[in-house]
């Protein structure tokens, strides 16, 4: 785990709650004060602060912040302050509901990068919040092969052992190869392999594929579809990239987020907020290697104000 956030040695939740109250009361809001506290607390600590705040002021800190803050900063703080499983549930729901251009990759990230227990926690949090199961909503908003792939990935409870069956990896790499070669892209087998095998096993399968075919499976999928099964093969590629090397995947998301004309704040916020306490440091290093520019610099160039200050704090900037 390579967390980037900087946490003081001693933390008092009551003091924090009081300081936050001072930051939001009155006419204006002291955003810097909010950042200086919340940006330096772990997930567990943030939950304690919420409790303390509620004890002291009979108010939900989250709701208060929602009303006091605005824009990208508010979205970022809202996601940050939620418990990780709850956060993922919210992200998934927002992504699914986007009618025009549904964000499959958000759901794919959650399904493929979280550990089986974490994914389970997300499913529970989703039920608690929305009174429906995650898979129900995914199924209701998708059709065809995309639906099959997403529901399978979201409901998986993969075995977590590290053992690899080399013979099986080879044979399933062959199945994947045949499936992609076929004009029909035999989705059933592909979905089966990608969504049920343990992570160690499926990665071994992808490695076998690369060894046998001389090219990575994701590159092969890129070459295949002009428009045939585009949505499906796109989603499949994302899933495979998430399973294979999540840090590389996130580096690309970040790179695209800052590169675009007009930054993709949603993506930027999502990656930084969800990975800050996990492996953001590794992602930063990878980003630097790939782009010769520190991630903080790219973020600073493309964002401004409190939103920028908050992201930089989560990236590890000390006050």
């Amino acid at each position, binding site marked *: 785990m390579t967390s980037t956030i900087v946490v003081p040695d001693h933390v008092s939740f009551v003091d924090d709650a009081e300081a936050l109250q001072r930051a939001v009361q009155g006419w204006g809001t002291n955003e810097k004060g909010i950042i200086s506290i919340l940006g330096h607390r772990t997930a567990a600590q943030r939950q304690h602060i919420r409790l303390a705040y509620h004890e002291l002021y009979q108010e939900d800190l989250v709701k208060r912040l929602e009303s006091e803050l605005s824009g990208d900063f508010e979205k970022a703080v809202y996601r940050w302050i939620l418990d990780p499983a709850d956060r993922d549930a919210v992200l998934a729901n927002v992504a699914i509901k986007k009618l025009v251009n549904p964000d499959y990759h958000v759901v794919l990230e959650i399904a493929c990068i979280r550990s089986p227990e974490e994914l*389970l926690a997300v*499913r*529970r949090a989703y*039920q608690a919040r929305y*009174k*429906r*199961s995650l*898979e*129900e909503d995914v*199924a209701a908003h998708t*059709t*065809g092969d995309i*639906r*099959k792939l997403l*529901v*399978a990935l979201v*409901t*998986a*409870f*993969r*075995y*977590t*052992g590290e*053992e690899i069956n080399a013979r099986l990896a080879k044979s399933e790499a062959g199945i994947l190869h045949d499936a992609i070669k076929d004009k029909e892209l035999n989705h*059933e087998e592909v979905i*089966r392999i990608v*969504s*049920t*095998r*343990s992570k160690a096993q499926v990665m071994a399968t992808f490695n076998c594929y690369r060894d046998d075919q001389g090219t990575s499976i994701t590159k092969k999928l890129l070459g295949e579809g002009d428009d045939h099964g585009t949505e499906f093969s796109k989603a499949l590629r994302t899933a495979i990239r998430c399973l294979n090397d999540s840090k590389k995947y996130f580096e690309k998301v970040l790179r695209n987020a800052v590169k675009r004309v007009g930054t993709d704040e949603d993506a930027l916020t999502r990656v930084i907020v969800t990975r800050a306490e996990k492996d953001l440091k590794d992602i930063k290093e990878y980003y630097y290697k790939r782009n010769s520019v520190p991630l903080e610099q790219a973020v600073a160039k493309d964002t401004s104000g409190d939103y920028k200050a908050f992201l930089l704090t989560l990236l590890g900037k000390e006050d």
Partner: protein
Amino acid sequence: MYHESDDLFSLKLHYCLQVLSSELTHRKKKMANGSEALIKAFSGIGIDEKAIVSLLGESHPEDRQNFRKGCRDFFIEDERSFERWDDHRVKLLKHEFMRFKNAAVLRAMHPWERDARLIKEALIKGPQSYGVIVEVACTRSSDELLGARKAYHSLFDHSIEEDVASNVDSSERKLLVALVSAYRYEGPKVKDDTAKSEAKKLAHAIKNVDKKNLVEDEEVISILSTRSKPHLKAVYKHYKEICGKNIDEDLTADLIVLVAVHCLCIPQTYFCKILDASLTNNADKKVKKGLTRVIVTQADRNMKEINEQYQKLYGVSLSQKIEVTANGNYKDLLLTLISRGK
């Protein structure tokens, strides 16, 4: 020369002969009764251990000879003048002796391990046992099914969905994988219009069954594997209102879908049907196993409702039926488990 003692002697002789004859008859009858009782002790579901101890234990060689000669089902007359056990019958007896042991072991097991092993066994046995996979996936609570999935990891080093997906190569695969992967919402909230429209979707799929198998129909799979149970019960109700009959009657050709619908919407009826089938004479070996499975897994959960439903459906109490059909320790264990629901 006539002596008075001659009459006395013949009287005595006559008397002795009568006693001897009735003794022999009595003896023959006892042996015959003993044979009948022994056959009974070896028949039915489970073995009557006590009866066997006393009958076989106290028997003379001639009694056992009579038993063997009188029981053509169990013994074959060999050309070399002896009666030999029928091998197939011995094999069947092995299963009957094991029934108590299996029930006891299953009962002592953690419910998660129990369900994981039931699924594994069904996968190994093949398509005729896939109904058990559906039963476990659909009648357990969300957390119980989850527990089974965890236990499966520990026991078999694979996930359930992985093994189901790679072992089932028939058209039922997708539905089975989807059912074992579910983590259904368990609250009471149901959107009635959605339930109604999904009942219509099911009706539509059933109508078009010659174009697309129900088990492979995306909508059917989605509805059955992602919706909550209260929601599905509402769908069941709406189907009846829309089509004028219960969805079961339209599913007779799609066994797995039928089992899923039963387990999700009318589980008590489902369990009663399994129990009744297992208590029928000459039931198939697999069908008989349903007796242990259902009673052991439901004893702490729905036994009361199952007892009531059984009485309602078949007009006789479950315990009565078991009293008549099962034997020995196995019978006693089952009756004890059932009485928890009274």
